[in-house]
């Protein structure tokens, strides 16, 4: 273990604190780890952006519990299946992104509101999402797929 990073051949885990700088560190770690596993660039970019938005939601809405304990991020890469998965595990307020209502985009700048942009990005950047609440923590998993080579 080094800098909160745990690794094995296909999987890797990182623990971070809830802060903007730590979210950047997590995104850069994710991109590096996926590229080392030959995940296509397009899927790396999608998962990196989705991870940023998931963690930004935890930071903004997870409450004091989310900030008091480390957030754990785990990646699994399955080249043979053409899939990479990311799990974010946090102690914040229960929140299921898979059940959140669809955001209706504003039609004009005057109607545009500051919030509600993260979930559309997570949905666009993921091919699937799953959520469970277990042990007092949110476990949100999402993934991206690509054609097998």
């Amino acid at each position: 273990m080094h800098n909160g990073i745990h690794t094995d051949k296909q999987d890797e885990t990182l623990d971070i604190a809830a802060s903007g700088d730590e979210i950047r560190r997590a995104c850069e770690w994710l991109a590096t780890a996926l590229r080392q596993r030959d995940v296509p660039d397009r899927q790396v970019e999608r998962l990196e952006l989705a991870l940023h938005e998931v963690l930004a939601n935890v930071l903004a809405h997870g409450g004091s519990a989310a900030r008091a304990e480390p957030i754990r991020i785990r990646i699994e890469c399955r080249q043979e299946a053409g899939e990479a998965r990311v799990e974010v595990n946090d102690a914040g307020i229960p929140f299921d992104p898979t059940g959140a209502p669809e955001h209706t985009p504003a039609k004009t700048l005057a109607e545009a509101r500051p919030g509600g942009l993260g979930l559309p990005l997570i949905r666009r950047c993921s091919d699937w999402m799953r959520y469970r609440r277990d042990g007092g923590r949110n476990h949100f998993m999402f993934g991206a797929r690509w054609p097998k080579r």
Partner: protein
Amino acid sequence: MSIIHTDVGDNLRKIVILGRLDIPGTESIADELEKLAAAPKKGVVVDLSSLKFLASIGIRALFKSARAVKERGGKMVLVVGTNASVLMSLEATGVSEMIPMFRSDAEAERAAVA
């Protein structure tokens, strides 16, 4: 993270943002972007074509500036070039419907002062 601007004549301001518009990146340039967009120029072109990463917090900063430009009677447009990841962020959040986007500088400049 950097933000650079150039004024072209009396009517146009070009702003180039480089780096990552993630949480720390946006926090570091948001005030400057707001200040640059507030200048009394009719048109504002924001060039995102070399941006490495555009998260929702960065999009909110763009919305805020575009609204400020519009409220003073101007127009803000974006240049995205061939930056696929930036384009994906803008399309997924509906920005492309509200702030005109162009591939080239020339098209963007014409639209901003039209």
